């Protein structure tokens, strides 16, 4: 199969899953040349066991030279300073305050805000008219990030716009002058400017949100540098905004046409398992890059030291060696050792928060929407990194309870 993993059209059409399946079967370690940079490329691994090994073994596969394919050959300026681009032991020190903030604080105190926010998102869909579920879900992460980071409510729209430039820079909808690099640069610098101003302000007026926690944190007696706090805010916002919306959209787009939404909504016992299955099915961050620190042999292929290796989590999550009948969305699947949040030291720091928000979202959806019909062709994002849907126009059938509340 000659199709390239770097071909954005493949992902837009949804053909990437076929290519992943072919690679898992026939070419588990493949050299993928970069069309934009002659002579350069990366090693692609697509089987579950190999993806897991690359992500777990940070002694062999380092994160400190960039973890995103679009940084290939450029190095990552955040190397060693930002969670995702840092190896242990520095990684574990950086992660500590974030971990604490995103585990304990987030869960309890955000619930009323998140539930009210979710109801506001779903409400326009309860009138029986066409409703872009994907557009509504793009606002979902900000419902949690706004109180978590203590962001002003009025900034939400602008932040969503900037985040889209950084996360889906290949998509013409967000581009500046049709230029990918210019779009990335603009989104990235504006977000940095935003957080630089915000954090300077918070140093004068401390708050008890996650930013306040990072500012107050000391590791071995030393505070975090302002730039590392900015960088972590940036990656938290991008991490949440670029990924979370794609979990419910992928689930609804797949389940609705086959009667699966109605069935899941009626089976409350499967809320948790179904969410895990939606995470497996969606795998929004479909790949991450590492660099070899020594030469490695995988499946008889010799990978030299200092080479980029890209682990396709999206492919691993459909590996039939690990998942029975992987092409079936099974809301009762258990066990479900999916890699939707990654694996190893870099396991998504926001996983608790994501599960918490998804739980509230699906509780509220099942309480207010019996069934969903997809009424227009689904439009996928143009991205070789983020696996997701841009437009999902649906008509929802409200539950009796939702109708009573609307009538009241």
């Amino acid at each position, binding site marked *: 199969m000659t199709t390239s993993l770097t071909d954005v059209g493949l992902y837009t059409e949804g053909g990437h899953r076929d290519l992943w399946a072919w690679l898992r079967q026939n070419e588990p370690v493949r050299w993928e040349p970069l069309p934009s940079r002659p002579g350069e490329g990366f090693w692609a691994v697509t089987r579950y066991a190999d993806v897991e090994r690359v992500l777990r073994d940070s002694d062999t596969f380092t994160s400190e030279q960039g973890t995103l394919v679009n940084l290939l050959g450029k190095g990552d300026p955040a190397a060693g300073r930002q969670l995702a681009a840092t190896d242990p032991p520095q990684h574990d020190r950086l992660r500590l305050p974030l971990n604490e903030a995103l585990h304990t604080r987030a869960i309890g105190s955000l619930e009323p805000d998140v539930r009210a926010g979710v109801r506001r998102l779903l409400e326009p869909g309860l009138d029986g008219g066409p409703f872009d579920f994907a557009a509504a879900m793009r606002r979902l992460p900000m419902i949690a990030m706004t109180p978590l980071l203590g962001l002003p409510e009025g900034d939400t729209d602008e932040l969503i716009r900037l985040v889209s430039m950084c996360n889906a820079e290949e998509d013409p909808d967000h581009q500046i002058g049709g230029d990918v690099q210019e779009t990335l640069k603009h989104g990235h610098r504006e977000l*940095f*400017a935003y957080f630089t101003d915000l954090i300077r302000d918070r140093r004068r007026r401390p708050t008890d949100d996650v930013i306040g926690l990072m500012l107050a944190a000391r590791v071995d007696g030393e505070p975090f540098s302002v730039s590392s706090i900015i960088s972590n805010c940036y990656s938290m916002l991008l991490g949440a905004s670029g990924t979370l919306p794609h979990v419910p959209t992928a689930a609804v787009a797949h389940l609705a046409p086959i009667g699966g939404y109605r069935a899941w909504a009626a089976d409350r016992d499967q809320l948790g398992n179904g969410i895990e299955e939606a995470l497996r099915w969606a795998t929004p961050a479909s790949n991450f890059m590492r660099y070899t620190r020594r030469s490695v042999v995988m499946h008889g292929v010799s990978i030299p030291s200092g080479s980029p290796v890209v682990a396709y989590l999206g492919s691993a999550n459909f590996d039939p060696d690990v998942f029975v009948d992987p092409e079936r969305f099974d809301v009762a699947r258990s066990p479900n050792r999916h890699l939707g949040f990654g694996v190893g030291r870099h396991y998504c720091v926001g996983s608790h928060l994501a599960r918490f928000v998804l739980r509230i979202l699906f509780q509220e959806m099942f309480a207010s929407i019996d069934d969903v019909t997809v009424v227009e062709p689904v439009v996928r994002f143009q991205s070789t990194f983020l696996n997701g849907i841009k437009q999902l126009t649906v008509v929802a059938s409200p539950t009796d309870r939702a109708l009573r509340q609307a009538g009241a």
Partner: protein
Amino acid sequence: MTIEMHAVDDADPSSLEQEIVSIWAAMLELDSVEVDEDFFELGGDSLMAAELQIQIDRRFGVEVPASVIYRTPTIAQLARAVRSARCDEERSRVQA
């Protein structure tokens, strides 16, 4: 005292620029920098820009919006923003 210092800057408009030149040169590990060169083209990155901003806050005692360094990353523009922030501060001090 502040007003006197400001007068010195006005008399010698390049001194503020010179101070920023030395901050940039140290950060970018360069011998010299022209006032209209682009911070990012000289090898600066977004994290260094944030650190630069903090150093400027500290050195000049005023805060300029971070959009200046990220949108118009030259010493000339930064110096202009620092002057304007000082003017604003003086004005508010006089009013207070």
